[in-house]
């Protein structure tokens, strides 16, 4: 009797177990399916643009002539953002992990995280209404004094709505990402390495140069890569700040365009082949950011296995 009652309750519980583990497995697989679906549906919708005759695409010279300048524009904006954000972000991360008083450190980290909480459209509005106006005199100065450099060739934009302004706004947006990741890595530095350096008479900066930075280098690289991924895909900051145009080498004239902003500006009113063209542009952006992110994640996981920090 007892044996049967045991087996019967077990039967009911086993169904629950199966349903539950099945649901969990299905949810996990759904995520893989979604990522696969993103690629699949973008390809399906992009095919008409890739196979269309050249004169049907905007610009009349085929898809690659259309996508080429905006890919370069995207890269220019992202590179500006990283060049500005990386040194500042590493400085902030070091400040929070090694310089700030212990009790303040977590609060200050939260303040920097607030930068990440502000919506991108607000950054875009800020860049367009405030930063562009404030910074345009500096562009005039650059054009006058540094104009012999192709990137500062005049005449400078009087509105300040240039790719350099967009790059600065992007730098503000990627700063918290690079900061929080580098901070985590710096805090993982083995205490013994730091104390050994200090015990040998190193100053704080020498300790950081000898113990913290070499240990954190792979982490910093992957943090920069993740920031790059964000800067490549960011839409609103560029769409609102940049007055776009053809590809130009000068960073302080209006001109250039990025993929994400191109899509956002044109998709709402697009129809027919234009929709396909924009989705194909989105596919290109997806592939670029996917590659950047996968390399970054790969560096992080490889680092985890060898560092012994975890």
């Amino acid at each position, binding site marked *: 009797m007892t044996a049967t009652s045991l087996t019967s309750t077990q039967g009911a519980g086993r169904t629950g177990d199966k349903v539950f583990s099945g649901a969990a497995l299905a949810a996990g697989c759904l995520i893989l399916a979604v990522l696969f679906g993103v690629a699949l*549906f973008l390809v399906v919708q992009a095919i008409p643009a890739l196979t269309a005759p050249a004169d049907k695409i905007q610009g009349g010279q085929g898809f690659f002539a259309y996508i080429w300048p905006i890919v370069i524009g995207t890269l220019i904006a992202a590179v500006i953002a990283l060049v500005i954000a990386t040194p500042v972000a590493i400085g902030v991360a070091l400040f929070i992990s090694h310089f700030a008083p212990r009790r303040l450190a977590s609060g200050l980290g939260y303040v920097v995280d607030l930068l990440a909480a502000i919506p991108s459209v607000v950054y875009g509005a800020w860049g367009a209404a405030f930063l562009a106006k404030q910074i345009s005199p500096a562009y005039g100065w650059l054009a006058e004094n540094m104009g012999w450099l192709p990137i500062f060739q005049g005449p400078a934009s009087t509105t300040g709505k240039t790719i350099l302004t967009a790059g600065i706004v992007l730098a503000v947006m990627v700063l918290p990402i690079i900061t929080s990741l580098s901070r985590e890595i710096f805090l993982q530095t083995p205490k013994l390495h730091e104390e050994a350096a200090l015990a040998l008479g190193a100053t704080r900066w020498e300790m950081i140069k000898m113990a913290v930075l070499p240990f954190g280098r792979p982490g910093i690289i992957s943090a920069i890569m993740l920031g790059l991924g964000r800067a490549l895909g960011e839409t609103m900051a560029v769409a609102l700040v940049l007055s776009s145009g053809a590809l130009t080498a000068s960073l302080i004239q209006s001109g250039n365009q990025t993929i994400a902003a191109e899509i956002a500006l044109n998709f709402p009113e697009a129809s027919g082949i234009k929709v396909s063209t924009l989705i194909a542009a989105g596919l290109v952006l997806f592939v670029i950011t996917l590659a950047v992110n996968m390399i970054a994640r790969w560096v992080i996981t490889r680092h985890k296995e060898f560092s012994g920090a975890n």
Partner: protein
Amino acid sequence: MTSTLTPVRSKRSALTKGQLPKYAPYAVLAAALIVGAAILALIGFNAFGWGLVSALLFAIGLVSWSAMVEGSRRAKDKLATCLVVGSFLVALLPLVSVIWTVLVNGIPGLMDPGFLTTSMNGVTGAFDNKAVESGGPVMGGIYHAILGTVQITLLATVISVPVGLLTAIYLVEYGHDGRLAKAITFFVDVMTGIPSIVAGLFAAAFFFVVVGPGTKTGAVAAVALSVLMIPVVVRSSEEMLKIVPNELREAAYALGVRKWRTILKVVIPTAISGIASGVTLAIARVIGETAPILVTAGFATSINSNVFGGWMASLPTFIYTQILNPTSPSNPDPSSQRAWGAALVLIILVMVLNLVARLIARIFAPKTGR
């Protein structure tokens, strides 16, 4: 006794010889501020320039003084400290500037009559022209946008939380670090990096294929936001489930409780505070997304309470369109006033969500120890 000690105290100890006195940074700071003010007074005073010049003078002064007294190694250390602290202050500048700009420009927008309770339905450029010319109140409001944002975000949350939580449960309880679990972890990480506009294009392309070309509704936007939200929910829930002590699970198993009931009744209740705060943070992240909504839900000027039919407005797209395509092209000021008002509302919403997440994490945290 005292007479022998006094001269020792007045002299500097041999240990601190060759070091800058304790007051050195303050003295240099004061000098830098005064000299900075003097320089700025010559070329036209402004607060930002004063701060910049003083900071530069402070760094140069402290480092060169240190180089003279303490030698090059300590001077380098001082220089590095100045740079690190300086970079933190530089990082604070945009934060302060953004919040200040939004407050200054947003509060007049918020004061418009009926700003929170009316939509833009029927508000044309003529109203804005009249408001500018005769100084009347700025008409129109953001009720439709708030409604749209709340509905789209709610639907996205309803989709993402079960999927994200179940995936996290799979990874922690069933995955056993197998090949599938590793693949899911890797691709969830990769998914965090999907540009938001690509997520929007995916949802648009998906519905174009399944429902029909040109389908733009709130539900499409919710799907796009879910793509962005699921990885965040998975990551935070996974972290929270991982820190549930194994003893709790083993105790439940020892009592003969089934695994699924253990997860539902023991593991999740223990981790619920962390999960809830993670979900709130995920909502805060997607509520400000503009690009995916722009390509999936279109923009509307009137109230639409049906997520599954018709174009829908949201706060971010409202800000975007009001700035880029003002209601009255000849007088863009009322439109930008509305945009900044909406931006203020959006920022308050995001900050409140962040705060709530922290409070949840703190108040409902499981009691450890007795």
